[in-house]
C-alpha cells in the first residue's frame, strides 16, 4: 500500500479524531446521566431528581399554622370557610413561620372577598355570590338582624343611600359586617353597626 500512503494518513487522522472525541465525551457527560427505565421516557441525569427535591418550600400549609395557633380556640374558623387553607387569604406564610415576629399579612380589601364572591355566570351555585349590593344589604337586613333599634337606623341609612359607594364610604369593607373566620352570620361579629369609624 506504499502507493496509497495519503489514504493511510487520512484514515489515521480520522481515527485519531474519533478517538479524541470519544475521550472528550466521556469526560464531559455528567456522571449520573444514564438509563433509569424505558429509554424513551427515563433517560436522564439522576442528580436532577435530587435537585428538584431540594427546592425550598414557600407555602407552609395549614398544619404548620395549627402548630402554634390552635384552630378551635384562637382562630375559630367555622362555617363555609372552615376547609380553606390559611394561606389562601393570608398569602404565603414562610416568613412568619421562620420568624414569628414578622406579622401575618392581612388583606382587608373588598377585592379579596369579591374575588370569590362576586357574581359570575361561570361560578357554581353552591357558593354565595353578590350580584347587586343593594339587594345584598337589604337581604342581610331581612335575615341577619334582630335588634330593632339597629335595624331601623340601618334601614333609614340604606333608604337614603343613592349608590353603594355611599355605603362603602362608611362601611368600605366586607369585614365590617362579616367575620372571615366565621362567615355567614354578620350578627356574630359586628359590635357597633352604626358606629361610623371612617368617613
Amino acid at each position, binding site marked *: 500500500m506504499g502507493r496509497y500512503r495519503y489514504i493511510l494518513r487520512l484514515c489515521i487522522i480520522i481515527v485519531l479524531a474519533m478517538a479524541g472525541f470519544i475521550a472528550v465525551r466521556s469526560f464531559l457527560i*455528567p456522571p449520573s*446521566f444514564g438509563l*433509569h*427505565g*424505558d*429509554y*424513551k*421516557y*427515563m*433517560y*436522564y*441525569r439522576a442528580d*436532577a*431528581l435530587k*435537585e*428538584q*427535591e*431540594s*427546592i*425550598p*418550600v*414557600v*407555602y407552609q*400549609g*395549614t398544619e404548620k399554622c395549627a402548630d402554634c395557633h390552635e384552630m378551635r380556640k384562637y382562630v375559630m374558623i367555622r362555617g363555609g*370557610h372552615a*376547609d*380553606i*387553607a390559611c*394561606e*389562601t387569604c393570608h*398569602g*404565603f406564610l414562610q416568613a412568619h413561620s421562620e420568624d414569628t415576629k414578622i406579622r401575618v399579612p392581612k388583606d382587608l380589601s373588598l377585592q379579596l372577598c*369579591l*374575588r*370569590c364572591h*362576586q357574581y*359570575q*355566570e*361561570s*361560578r*357554581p351555585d353552591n*357558593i354565595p355570590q353578590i350580584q347587586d349590593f343593594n339587594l345584598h344589604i337589604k337581604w342581610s337586613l331581612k335575615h341577619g338582624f334582630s335588634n330593632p333599634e339597629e335595624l331601623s337606623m340601618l334601614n333609614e341609612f340604606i333608604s337614603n343611600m343613592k349608590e353603594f359607594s355611599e355605603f362603602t364610604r362608611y362601611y368600605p369593607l366586607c369585614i365590617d359586617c362579616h367575620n372571615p373566620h366565621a362567615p355567614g352570620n354578620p350578627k356574630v361579629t359586628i359590635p357597633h353597626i352604626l358606629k361610623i369609624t371612617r368617613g
Partner: protein
Amino acid sequence: MDIDRRQFLKQAGCTLLGGGVFISIGQFSPGIAKASQLPPLGTSTPVYGFVVNTFKCIGCGKCVEACKIENHVPVSCFRTWVERYLVTADGAVHVDSPDGGCNGFPPRDVPGIIKKAYFVPKLCNHCARPNCVQVCPVGATYVSPEGVVLVDEQHCVGCSYCVQACPYGARFINPVKKTADKCTWCYHRVKRGLTPACVLVCPAKARLFGNLNDPDSPLIKIFTKERVNVLKPDLGNEPRTSYVGLAEEVR
C-alpha cells in the same frame, strides 16, 4: 469508473433500510400498555395522580397566584392557569383566561343569552407516555419514578421542541433560566409529604392530588364514583390528570 446504477441503488436501498431500522428501534419500546414504564401498582413507590373538578371551580385564580409564588414563575409564563367558558344559546363558545386567571376574572359581557358557563383549571397533565419527553434531543426532560414529568434545568439547551410537542400548551421557555419549564406537581413539596401549592390554596376543593397506589386515596373514590375524562385522549399520551365534568367544548 461509474458505479453500476443497479449496484448503487442496491447499496442506497440497504443504507436507507438499515438507517430506518436503526431509528425505529427506539420507537418500538414496550411503552404500549398504560404506564408500563412505572413501577407496578401495589409497590411502595407512589404513583401520583391529579383530578380537576370543573363543577367546583369558582374561578378565583388563587391557584395560579400560589403556583407563581411557590415556583417563582416569571410574569408572562404559566405553569397552571384557569379558563372561563361561556356558552351562549346560539352555540357560540367564548373562552378567555385573562393573565391566566392570576388576578381573578373580571366580569365579561358576551352577545347572547348564556346557556352554560364554567371554569376549567388547566395544568401539565403529566402523561404516562408523554410525547414531550419523547422529543427531547438531549435527555433533559424525563419521567420520574413516581410518574412526575420533570425538566433538568442544568442540561436543557432551550431548543423548544418539547414546547412545540405538548398538545396542551403546558410548557414554556422560562425567560430567566432560558430552559424549558412546566408544572412539576410541586415535586419538592410532594416529596416532603405536602400537597402541591395549587391544591393547598384552592378554596373550593376543585383540585385533588394523591397517590394512585394508595387504595384509600380520595382519587380512587372519584374514579369509581364520578365520570372522569382526560384531555385529547386520541393523541395517545395517556395523561394522568383527569377532569370531572369535562364538557365537550373544552380542548
